């Protein structure tokens, strides 16, 4: 279990850099403000509106945080040369990668948990109650999304030999998934039907949308807390989103491992 040494060292480094504290503060701020916004804007707001606002904000914000946390993890050590010290030790390359991945995932997830734990009393004070399951579902989705993007960022970080390439790849992927992905089903629908999709888009339309990690994470979390929607078509059931999420959790980091393992570390 030598990778745990790497993970511990990496996490200690992040604590020393105050990254963990800064992120925790940021999460507390976001969670508290996000929950409070509906109350501030409308008189008959409920806590569900607060969670809804948070959900929208976090879908955009969490991947960016995860990218910042993860994209330098391996390539940063290659640029400073410290990875040569690591790899001169009795550590295999997968152990360095696994240790980095776990360390960075902790840097991502722990502040999220702290932030949303602190937000609980805020919600109770503002709205008088907090629907436990909905909130847990939301926090689970945020954790899954954060962990997924950390994994993607670490995988990309292991694949390349310069910070610039890592940043370009990871931001490119983020932009595609976050901003351009919905154009794919819409474009396909337009090409096949000659008109934009109406109120009731076909199954495949929704299925393509759910390939995005953010949607997959949300769906998986729904399934975990509320059970599987067995009446839905197969590709829209929550376990299928689980398969998609596993793809995102496995494939980028696997590519990263293979490329890192074959790389010349000079």
């Amino acid at each position, binding site marked *: 279990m030598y990778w745990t*040494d790497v993970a511990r060292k990496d996490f200690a480094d992040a604590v020393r850099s105050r990254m963990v504290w800064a992120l925790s503060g940021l999460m507390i701020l976001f969670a508290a403000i996000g929950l409070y916004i509906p109350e501030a804007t409308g008189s008959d707001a409920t806590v569900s509106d607060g969670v809804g606002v948070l959900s929208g904000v976090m879908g955009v914000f969490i991947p960016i945080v995860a990218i910042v946390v993860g994209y330098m993890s391996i390539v940063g050590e290659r640029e400073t040369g410290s990875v040569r010290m690591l790899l001169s030790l009795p550590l295999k390359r997968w152990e360095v990668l696994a240790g980095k991945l776990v360390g960075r995932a902790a840097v991502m997830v722990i502040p999220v948990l702290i932030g949303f734990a602190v937000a609980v009393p805020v919600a109770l004070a503002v709205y008088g109650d907090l629907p436990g399951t909905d909130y847990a579902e939301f926090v689970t989705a945020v954790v899954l999304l954060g962990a997924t993007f950390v994994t993607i960022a670490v995988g990309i970080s292991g694949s390349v030999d310069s910070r610039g390439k890592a940043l370009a790849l990871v931001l490119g992927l983020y932009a595609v998934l976050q901003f351009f992905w919905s154009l794919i089903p819409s474009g396909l629908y337009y090409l096949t039907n000659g008109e934009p999709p109406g109120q009731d888009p076909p199954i495949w339309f929704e299925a393509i949308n759910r390939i995005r990690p953010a949607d997959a994470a949300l769906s998986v979390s729904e399934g975990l807390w509320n059970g599987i929607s067995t009446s839905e078509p197969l590709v829209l059931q929550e376990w299928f989103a689980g398969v998609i999420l596993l793809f995102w959790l496995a494939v980028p980091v696997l590519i990263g491992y293979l490329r890192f393992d074959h790389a010349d570390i000079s």
Partner: protein
Amino acid sequence: MLAVETEGLIKQYGDVVAVDGLNLTVEEGEIYGFLGPNGAGKTTTINMLLGLIHPSGGSAQVLGQEVGDHIREVRSRIGVLPAHSELYDRLTARKHLEFVVGVKDADDDPDALLERVGIPDAADRPAGDFSTGMGQRLRLAMALVDDPDLLVLDEPTSGLDPNGARQMRRIIQEENDRGATVFFSSHIMDQVESVCDRVGVLNQGTLVAEDTVVGLRDAAVGGPQLSVTLENTVDGVAETVQTVDGVTSVAVEGNTLRASLASAEMKGPAMNAVAATDARIADFEFSEESLEDVFATLTGEAEGATA
């Protein structure tokens, strides 16, 4: 057994050949100085020995194992001081050492190691505050964890002041006395003289010489020179000196007589031979080719060396 052995080791980057068919042997228990100017391919070679970069051809064995399947078992017996490897700025010296101790399953005391490398007070300071020399000492301490059988030190004296370099040599000697093989690289010849059992000189990716320090000096062109300035010119002095055993050649230039000697010990007999004539000695000078000169000659850095 050999601690390090390479056969026809090659590393090529596109058209550039960094290491060109290198045959290297480091005996177990010796201190081997791996010398060469910057860019000669020393670090590339070391990186191949450590399995960090993949050879383009040839083979390399470390502690009897092919570097291809260079695994935990072998690397746990090696202590490495890598060149151009930054420390973790925010982690303390103690954390650095605890990390290495943990990964190596060792039980070394970080404080004792820091004491040994001469920075006992640095344990709880983050490495980002360290001077270059302190950083290098910490790297050495990290290499010493778990009493490795083989120490691979890439430019260990870089960034050290003369005192630090002396301490580094002392530790290298101590480690060797303990039974460790030490393989270290340097681009400065003078630093290796006192500690190395053998040296290999690398230039443009190939070994241009491999010998003991004494052997290397002996093989060098020229050898020791004795130059005697006379107050008066006397016929036959050159001829007389020439007859002395160990004097290889004599040349006279005005009042100065230059004798090339087979070894430094011959300077006494040569001086006596001059004194035995009617010539009166005004001054004399003895010069031995320094290792630095030998090195420069071997690596084509000497002034007037063939381009």
